[in-house]
């Protein structure tokens, strides 16, 4: 699966190098032969690089005009007589560009040699090869997008399902930023009420606690709603690990194939065929899931099977969701019963397979078991639905129009907002420490500050000056 690994993405955002001060270049279209391909150059020298390697068809001129497509030839620096290809260039002047810096886009025919030639010319003219994600990083550093947007860019590019693409596009367009702005305004309102009463007691005698509680609750609710999207949202980006487990020969591999709707796993009649594990990617309600088929769990078999079983248990421990497969044609073994018991607390779906065959008299399935047949496809759709239900707890969080939490970082920031609001509300209702008998505004302010810091972590900043500005515009201050 082509997905940038999380570590690389984090590293890109952690801005661990000092090299983003110079001009960078990269081939921005996928490798291979295409009708067109594009090289992008961004940085303070982008304009000079363009002038060195590109000559307009109309002849040398005074330099590129911002946002105008210009036809001409691209060539090695200062050697216009050796054209690499015909190209169309567009110059975006800072700060009105993706990264906020001077940026040049050179579109030419999309052959690998042509693209490499243009890139090489750009490097000879003073640009440097861009690191992965560097354009987005610069865009964030220059304040062209907030952190949530920057995070979503890579996820959008690598989205593996239609639903993931839609959610990530919403993020890139700033959905989370808008939700954060709404929470921020509730919290600024709460902070304003508190600070006005603290700093201007002669004009604002009491905190309007009704309004304060209302604002805190609004921010609390918004943060809780967003947090409800976290499980699915993070899964949309990172994919979900689903492990199929069960005794040998209950039809785990056939079930994976049924889910995949294609032959990928080797299915064999002899128990213990799948010694290593096989995986496939499916999409359940738009959530990408990496489904792993495992070796059957059976004790007392040969060393190879033993090793397979150990590996299976490790995979089960790391799974986001388990599919426990039973064989409906025979009573459960004691081992299967034990396995069902030990996984009862984990998110799991139990499937009784082989519904196409007569059911064994002694087979009693646990409540909620899906009756299915990997062979006929019976119950497979039901299984998909059940997987989704177990994973989301029945919520349709992603269907909300607002932001979706797509990273742990966002979830942590939101948790900070949520806990700040909930602590303040608790104190307001008489649960917090106080010296004077009522919830003291300066203590409530500490919690609200914390929540505001959470919003700051999500996207931007809130300053003391902003709170004072609110106070002066809302209250008539001054003896």
């Amino acid at each position, binding site marked *: 699966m082509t997905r940038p690994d999380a570590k690389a993405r984090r590293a890109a955002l952690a801005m661990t190098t*000092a090299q983003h001060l110079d001009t960078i270049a990269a081939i921005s279209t996928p490798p291979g032969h295409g009708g067109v391909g594009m090289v992008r150059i961004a940085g303070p020298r982008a304009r000079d690089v363009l002038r060195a390697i590109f000559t307009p068809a109309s002849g040398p001129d005074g330099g590129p005009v911002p946002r105008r497509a210009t036809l001409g030839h691209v060539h090695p620096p200062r050697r216009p007589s050796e054209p690499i290809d015909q190209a169309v260039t567009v110059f975006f002047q800072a700060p009105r560009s993706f990264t906020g810096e001077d940026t040049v886009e050179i579109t030419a025919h999309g052959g690998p040699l042509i693209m490499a030639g243009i890139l090489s010319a750009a490097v000879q003219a003073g640009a440097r090869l861009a690191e992965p994600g560097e354009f987005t990083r610069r865009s964030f550093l220059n*304040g062209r997008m907030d952190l949530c947007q920057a995070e979503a860019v890579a996820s959008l590019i690598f989205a593996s399902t239609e639903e993931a693409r839609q959610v990530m596009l919403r993020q890139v367009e700033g959905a989370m930023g808008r939700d954060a702005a709404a929470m921020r305004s509730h919290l600024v309102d709460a902070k304003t009420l508190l600070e006005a009463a*603290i*700093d201007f007691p002669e004009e604002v005698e009491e905190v309007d606690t009704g309004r304060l509680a209302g604002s805190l609750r609004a921010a609390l609710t918004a943060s809780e709603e967003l947090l409800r999207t976290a499980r699915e949202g993070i899964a949309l980006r990172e994919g979900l690990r689903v492990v199929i487990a069960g005794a040998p020969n209950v039809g785990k591999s056939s079930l994976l194939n049924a889910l995949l709707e294609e032959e990928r796993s080797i299915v064999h009649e002899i128990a213990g065929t799948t010694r290593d594990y096989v995986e496939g990617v499916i999409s359940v309600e738009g959530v990408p899931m990496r489904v792993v088929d495992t070796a059957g769990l059976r004790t007392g078999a040969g060393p190879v099977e033993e090793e397979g079983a150990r590996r299976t248990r490790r995979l089960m421990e790391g799974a986001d969701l388990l599919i426990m497969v039973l064989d409906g044609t025979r009573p459960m073994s004691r081992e299967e019963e034990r396995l069902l018991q030990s996984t009862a607390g984990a998110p799991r779906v139990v499937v009784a397979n082989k519904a196409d065959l007569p059911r064994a008299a002694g087979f009693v399935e646990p409540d909620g078991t899906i009756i299915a047949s990997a062979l006929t496809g019976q119950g497979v759709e039901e299984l998909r639905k059940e997987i989704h239900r177990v994973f989301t707890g029945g919520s349709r969080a992603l269907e909300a129009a607002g932001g979706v939490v797509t990273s742990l970082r966002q979830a942590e920031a939101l948790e900070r907002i949520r806990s700040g609001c909930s602590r303040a509300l608790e104190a307001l209702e008489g649960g917090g420490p106080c*010296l004077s008998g009522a919830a003291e505004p300066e203590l409530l302010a500490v919690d609200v500050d914390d929540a505001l810091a959470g919003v700051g972590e999500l996207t931007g900043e809130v300053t003391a000056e902003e*709170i004072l500005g609110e106070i002066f515009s809302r209250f008539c201050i*001054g003896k």
Partner: protein
Amino acid sequence: MNPKTPSSPRFRDPTRYDVIVVGAGHAGCEAARASARMGMSTLLLTISIDQVAHMSCNPAIGGIAKGHLVREIDALGGLMAMAIDATGIQFRRLNMKKGPAVRSSRAQADMYMYKSWVREELEAQERLHIKQGLVEGLLVEEGAGRSRVAGVLTQAGEEYGSEAVVVASGTFLGGMVHVGETMYPAGRAGEPPATTLSRALEHLGLRMGRLMTCTTPRLDAKTIDFDRTQEQPGDEVPRPFSFRTREITREQVPCWITRTTPGTLRIIQAGLHRSPMVSGAMKGTPPRYCPSIEDKARHFPDRTSHQIFLEPEGARTTEIYANGLFTGLPVEVQVAMLRSIPGLEEVQIMRPGYAIEYDFVDPTQLAPDLMLKDVTGLFLAGQINGTSGYEEAAAQGLLAGINAALRVRGEPPLVLGRDEAYMGVLVDDLVTRGVTEPYRLFTSRAEYRLLLREDNADLRLMETGYRLGLITDEEIGWLREKARMMERGLEELRGRKVTVEREGGARRGTPLEKVLRQPGVAYRDLEGLDTGFTPVPRQDVAEQIEIAVKYQGYIQRQEAMVRKVRRLESLTIPGDLDYASLSALSREARDRLGAVRPRNLGQASRIPGITAASVSALMVYLKGREKEKGERRKGKAGRK
């Protein structure tokens, strides 16, 4: 030398002073006294010796956050708290229904007594010389890239040399007074402005701006019917500002409250166009927190009534300060407006209210020790830095005086952190963020408000004052005893365990500390729970113990925040960093950083318009630069 100064001085004082302080307002007095007490021969120059420590506006000291400043000034060895304790005629603590962190002291002063008390104190100070003289120019030696101050020149042609100069010139720089359509140059109503000095500062290449503010009419008490107003008494037991004052013995007086009427507002509305603040005759920016009555009428037209506080200016004068009626309206509108207010129907104005505009120096040109970054030895303090308020001025004056003395001694400057003192918040805001209106301190400007309380100002700052030589042995002994008693008292609370009745049965072995943390339990209540326990008798210690226990969770959270921010503060930025070359930063960020030249990343992060992303970019650059340097060093070593 400054070309605008008189060409040949008629009198050159052969004495070379260590420190010269220009201006004897609340900033200048603190600066001069601190400098002299630190062993510097100090010259204090004032336009009028009769106006030393004059209260040009409100005859009061303290207020929310300002009371905090006064306590800090006191803990560092300043003058203001003792002065108000000696001359206060009404003490009132504010925010008493809220927690200790935001409780503030405020007191009305007998402003005439206040002035003479401060003057006596200064006159008695060894090494401090007070002279009357209008400073018109600065003696500046041009060095390589950096100038250096060498003294001052006066209007009378005197020349005084010194190692350091503190300019605390208040609203006098280019001052222009407006009353309605009338305007005249003045530093305060009735006093000459310092116009030449303003030009001299401009000539040094300093960025200057213009601010405005206004004051209220002063009324004759004989013509006020106080029966039609509401009396506002002070606190029954006045609590002193100074850690040195045992009690307030002076006789206390009340203030009075009345309110504007719809008629008042109609009169103001009708006269609005004649106010210099509305007509556009004034250029500066007025303070939002201290709006003129014109502005209140304009911005809050639905509010039909505004409170007016009638505050005596002294015990032996009938002059009354009409707090809440700041105005630049013409005198006849002021009279009509006043007479529409209950109790003031027959009132006579003794001095009309007026608006004043004046020059200030953009304080982002100052280093955190209040010395100009580009002029060695030249310190600025008070309203010249764009602040308002006696307390803000005094705090800066004290710090500037201390730092001028430290500079002459060749010692590192005193810079207080935002987590140590409101003084630190004030100075950092000024030198980092600059001002767009006259700056006033609020508790909401402090990130670590629970740590910066009036009640612990001594614990926060007295040791520093002692190291500087501004706190006596006796005073520090008293503080250290307090700290010891606190520590012992807290230990006892942790060590002593009692059985507490609770829902669901008694709970054994609960430390008293935990009992005290419960709502509704006071420190003194613990005596009844444990027969072996005796509360600490000293009230100030008992108070500290109670706060420390009750607020522990919140205080710990704030302390954790402090540690986090300290990491940014520890990343220093070279003073000569060429921001223009940092293309990773937006142009705006480059400009702002270049103008302020922050000392560390923490300060950079507080500059307005500097986003978290810019701070990250700057951090990346600094780390890269460090690494590069390290590698270069390694490379050199390798070649050897």
